[in-house]
């Protein structure tokens, strides 16, 4: 398929891997920020092509993973109410709250629907004025414009029965929090291509300068990631630390201005709790005062909840790139996708789930196997 298979070409991948080997003189630890990239890396085995010593650690950019348990629990409480239509992207449905997940709420008679866009939820609200329609607005800067647009549309049409349960988070504050942590061993970043498609990469330039860390805006296909790693290692070897753009076919320095205007109109920057990490100041988006009528937490009068993660779950360390999933003692034993202890084992883009799915114990991805056919 055009624009997909070209970026999965085996021979080109081998060429990139050779070029990378030529420029690498010492070990480097890079972090890919986005869960989509993590998934791609483990699914295609990209890390097994890297020179020894070049390590990819997996970042906090999985929106499902970092949505705090409290918000999941609120979603479950709202979805279970009579008269509510609870709309969500598919992969939030399996995330367990305190005692159950949204799929169970659906099985118990709750009206939980998978939608592909928040605008679909607005359309449902328009069609069913006697029902309360709630959309679970989860994600990074990538999903924020469409969610903002849904609120603008509902506002314009005066829809009284539409609201958002907001759990939006922002990438740059999380990167800064990671870099400020004494545990951090990240020497370079692959920034998330889709986030930068919306936001551009100007806001990463002060981070690269302040922390002396190279940041390469990178796409999601195997060749994108290999090229991103190459560009990042090249900077490190040359002792440079700037923002570069690998994903030029989608990302401009200033990003998508109308999308950003949309976000700014509806949302303001607020502190947010990240599951497994804790609260990070100025790291999320909340509805602005003029749109507070669309806030599901207010509409359903949900007070403060506080739920603690199981102590044995080390997903916080995984999300910070300090611990590799299979180095956790619970990985694959007490913690599996069917019975997850924490966030990173739940989402299909979580690092632990990706490792479990693609390289469980007993399987060595580096082992030479010869041709399958």
């Amino acid at each position, binding site marked *: 398929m055009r624009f997909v298979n070209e970026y999965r070409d085996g021979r080109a991948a081998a060429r990139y891997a050779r070029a990378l080997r030529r420029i690498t003189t010492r070990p480097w630890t890079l972090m890919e920020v986005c869960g989509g990239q993590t998934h791609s890396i483990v699914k295609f085995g990209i890390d097994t092509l890297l020179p020894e010593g070049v390590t990819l650690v997996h970042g906090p950019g999985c929106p499902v993973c970092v949505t705090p348990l409290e918000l999941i629990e609120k979603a479950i409480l709202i979805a279970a109410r009579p008269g509510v239509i609870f709309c969500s992207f598919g*992969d939030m449905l399996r995330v367990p709250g305190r005692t159950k997940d949204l799929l169970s709420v659906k099985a118990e008679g709750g009206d939980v629907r998978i939608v592909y866009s928040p605008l679909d939820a607005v359309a449902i609200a328009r069609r069913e004025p006697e029902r309360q329609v709630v959309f679970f607005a989860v994600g990074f800067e990538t999903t924020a414009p469409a969610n903002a647009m849904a609120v603008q549309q509902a506002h314009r049409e005066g829809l009284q029965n539409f609201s958002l349960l907001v759990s939006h988070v922002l990438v740059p504050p999380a990167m800064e929090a990671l870099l400020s942590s004494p545990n951090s061993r990240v020497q370079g970043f692959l920034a998330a291509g889709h986030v930068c498609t919306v936001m551009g990469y100007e806001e990463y330039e002060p981070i690269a300068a302040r922390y002396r860390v190279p940041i390469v805006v990178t796409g999601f296909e195997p060749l994108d990631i290999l090229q991103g790693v190459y560009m990042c290692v090249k900077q490190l070897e040359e002792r440079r630390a700037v923002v570069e753009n690998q994903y030029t076919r989608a990302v401009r320095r200033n990003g998508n201005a109308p999308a950003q205007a949309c976000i700014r109109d509806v949302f303001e920057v607020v502190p947010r709790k990240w599951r497994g990490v804790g609260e990070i100041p100025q790291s999320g988006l909340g509805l602005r005062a003029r749109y507070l009528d669309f806030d599901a937490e207010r509409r359903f009068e949900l007070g403060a909840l506080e739920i603690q993660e199981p102590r044995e779950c080390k997903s916080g360390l995984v999300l910070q790139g300090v611990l590799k999933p299979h180095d956790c003692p619970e990985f694959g034993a007490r913690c599996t996708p069917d019975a997850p202890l924490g966030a990173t084992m739940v989402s299909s883009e979580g690092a632990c789930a990706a490792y479990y799915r693609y390289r469980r114990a007993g399987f060595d991805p580096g082992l030479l196997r010869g041709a399958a056919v």
Partner: protein
Amino acid sequence: MSTQSMNPAAPRTDTASPSFSCPVPLQEYPNVLLAHGGGGRLMHHLIETVFLEAFGNPQLENRHDGAVLELGGARIAFTTDSYVVRPLFFPGGDIGSLAVNGTVNDLAMCGAKPLYLSAGFILEEGLPMETLRRVVGSMRDAAQAAGVQFATGDTKVVDRGKADGLFVNTAGIGVVPSGVVIRPSEVRPGDAILLSGDIGRHGIAIMAVREGLEFETPIESDCAPVAGAVQALLAAGVEVHCLRDATRGGLATTLVEIATASGCGIQISEAAIPVHESVTGACEILGFDPLYVANEGRFTAFVAAADAERALEILRRQPGGGEASLIGRTTVQDAGLVVLQTRIGASRLVDMLSGEQLPRIC
């Protein structure tokens, strides 16, 4: 959960509660979820803990698509399947052709020549008679094409809203030629693994209609009988060890089931698995992996390596089989696991999904 805890005026904080435990293990759901029918690990868990627990016997332990029963000297293959597809009509097929082909194919996977079917109809009050006639007509045509006859049937009508228009159950019997033993335990290391055509079209065709997705060229279901292809392999004397149609859960689930049941390792090449461009595109948009998307006219054949080329030629001559391919082999290494060689030359595990594939966020 009690209704009290849903009272917004009394938010609970569970930090100090001794009853707090980690998120509930998902397979211990107190209610049936849709995902229990998704063909993944949840469904296997349900089969093991509820059905096998109650009905377990040597026949069921074979864990095959159908049973092969010795009756009065003859070997009879026996299988049943229920069809609950929405929409009833989709590009490339409908619930009627599906109900015939699905059961015929399950018989074929036992190496049987399919002979007779039963048809059970659960009709919803208010279903247009014209719709029923179309479905029945399509069942007649599919049965004719597969060379089977309806031998018995049943009809029930339920209240409006209690069925999605109509549900169909078919059971089927067929005869297994003497000397033909086709089941997972016959798989040997070194077997060639053949796939009878491109994958993913049925699942994506249904999804596209259900979700109102439009593509430049509409994707048609691969729904078709495969008994002819199996009969051709057997007639040519190909040493067939195991057959499995890649329905719910897709090719990946099928292969994991056989690796687990046979104890062999399975190694496949991603580049050798034919997937049409439109299916690849739809999967990219939806965040699906074509390996897990359902098919209704595709199967894998585990055959002796020496017969691989000959078997492939036979499969390619079948209607719709032009893209049949050799996708991998069984190994001693990685016993019980399915290992995929990715397009970029690395390798990874192929696992069974927990439930259904769910569209992801971004």
